[in-house]
């Protein structure tokens, strides 16, 4: 029984790993191919099956004037927008979540839970509902087709995630921890940043990761709210497609698009398993 369980477990893990890794291998191999190698016959192994070339990668950094599709600028635009919006969302969201977790708000029939739901309801709506208001809003304040405008929109999209995750997290931090800090001579602000915040790092990391992922992969708003001045990576990658699908450069751009997320995942994984609150409450 024990052996059978082990066998099934490892079989499943191996199958799953293949399922996850295969597309990456496919993309890596394809990114080094040219038109001939992709379209003639099935090929897998460089040098044996086909002659590898860097053309697919070169296209991504060449300027359009020289026949390339320059994704360097959109890449850094995307990094800037995602990181800035995530950071601001985490800071504001954490403060909001702490207030929602620790204080009681009453306004008419509105209570804490209603406010929390209001935040998350921003994400329940299909994005297309928000696109027109966002468009009008940004064009009114003159931020259409600009990095700042995108940051503003992304904060609206990402902050609910941060609030939602952090409210849940703070609710699990014993209130007695804050109270002890107050008794030990901290004012409420000091209690927050000297005691509660240092013990909330796992929650902050999870919230930050979700913000970065959702910000990084967004195509819809980046597509609707920008034209020529500013372009974000997802839009540019899609724009690669023309009458002939350039599988090689698409694969290359897909790989460098997921690269930051893979790095984030590996860095974060370490902290997630390490930090916990077990010492605060029995």
């Amino acid at each position, binding site marked *: 029984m024990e052996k059978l369980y082990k066998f099934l477990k490892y079989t499943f893990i191996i199958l799953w790993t293949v399922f996850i890794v295969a597309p990456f291998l496919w993309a890596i191999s394809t990114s080094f191919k040219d038109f001939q190698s992709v379209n003639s016959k099935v090929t897998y192994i460089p040098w044996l099956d086909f002659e590898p070339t860097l053309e697919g990668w070169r296209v991504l950094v060449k300027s359009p004037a020289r026949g390339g599709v320059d994704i360097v600028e959109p890449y850094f635009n995307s990094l800037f927008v995602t990181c800035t919006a995530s950071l601001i969302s985490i800071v504001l969201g954490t403060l909001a979540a702490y207030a929602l977790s620790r204080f009681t708000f009453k306004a008419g029939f509105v209570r804490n839970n209603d406010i929390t739901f209001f935040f998350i309801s921003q994400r329940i709506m299909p994005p297309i509902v928000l696109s027109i208001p966002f468009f009008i809003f940004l064009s009114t304040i003159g931020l259409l087709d600009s990095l700042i405008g995108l940051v503003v929109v992304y904060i609206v999209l990402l902050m609910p995630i941060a609030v939602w995750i952090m409210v849940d997290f703070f609710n699990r931090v014993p209130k007695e921890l804050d109270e002890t*800090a107050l*008794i*030990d001579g901290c004012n409420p602000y*000091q209690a927050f940043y000297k005691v509660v915040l240092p*013990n909330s790092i796992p929650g902050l990391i999870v919230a930050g990761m979700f913000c970065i992922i959702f910000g990084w992969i967004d195509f819809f708003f980046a597509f609707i709210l920008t034209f020529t001045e500013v372009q974000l990576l997802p839009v540019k990658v899609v724009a690669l497609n023309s009458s002939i699908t350039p599988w090689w450069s698409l694969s290359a751009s897909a790989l460098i698009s997921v690269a930051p997320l893979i790095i984030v995942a590996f860095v974060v994984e370490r902290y997630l398993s390490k930090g916990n609150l077990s*010492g*605060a409450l029995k």
Partner: protein
Amino acid sequence: MNLVAKNLTYKPDDQYHLNDVSFNFEKGRLYTILGRTLSGKTTLLKTIAGLLNPDSGNINFEDKNFSKVPVWERNVAMVYQQFINYPHLSVYENISFPLKQRKLNEEDIKKNVDDALKTVGLVGFENRKIQELSGGQQQRVALARSLAKKAKILLLDEPLVNLDYKLREQLREEFKTIFNEGLANETILIYSTTDPQEVMELNGEVIVLDEGKVLQTGPAKDIFENPINLKVAEISNDPPMNIINGLKIDGKITFENINIKLPKHLSQLDNKNYNFGIRSSEIKLDDSGEEFEIELAEISGSETLLHLKRGSTKVIALIEEVMNFKIHEKVKVEFNSDKFYVFAEDGKLISSPYRIKNG
């Protein structure tokens, strides 16, 4: 110069958490608050600490109105029943945290922390992480942090309740020495618990709290010997005092066809129905006694608790050895009538074996 509370009332929902609580606590003394779960003990301590604002009433300390002073300026210390420490800090940093907040210089901090560590027996644990400590050690750190502060008011909210039996006994012993030696003369120590035995051992001034109301105050011995009513008798005994509804007629007490010769201290009682109270430890197995049926037998430590039934009367007897009983078995027990309490139908104490009251 005392801690004086007047008519504290706190009613956040439809139930009183504090109901007209007043007291006058003197410096350098130990006060224990005895009450069952949800009786308002924690609320009272949090009110003193300033974490809760009472709906009405006020607290004065050293002739100053305490209500205007925020928590962080009150110079109180509190130990919770959960082991609350700062998980991101080491043991040393935990204990020095309040001192750093108060901006003491490094030397004084070190001296205070070392003293506190010595008092709670955690020398050598300075650099440990909180998560690496056992529950008992975590609670010692919490206690050390509150001692190192040398606060004028030290609040301990059921500090032993989450510990296992053995550790509880051990820490309780240590607490007595710490309270006697480790505290400054001007500290007011307030200790809340559900355990009557803890109250008796700490032997301070007792406040019996129930549903937010103070039922009785006085020295521990007083509460034990003369509980003013049935409620106090129940709360201040573990297992709760047995209450038997019986009739007093000339020279005897009868209930469930049992006749017990009237003890001397009850000779002046009028003939009528009373609630007779008797502690579990005053009911003994005796072959010449009365027959009861066993409903349940619990073994706790070195004792056996027998839940007995006869007709509609249920009593608990505490047998001071471990014995095996079968449920529904019949046993004979004897009541030590010299230790009978008498309560009126409305619950008021009429007579106790330690003092005779008329009424």
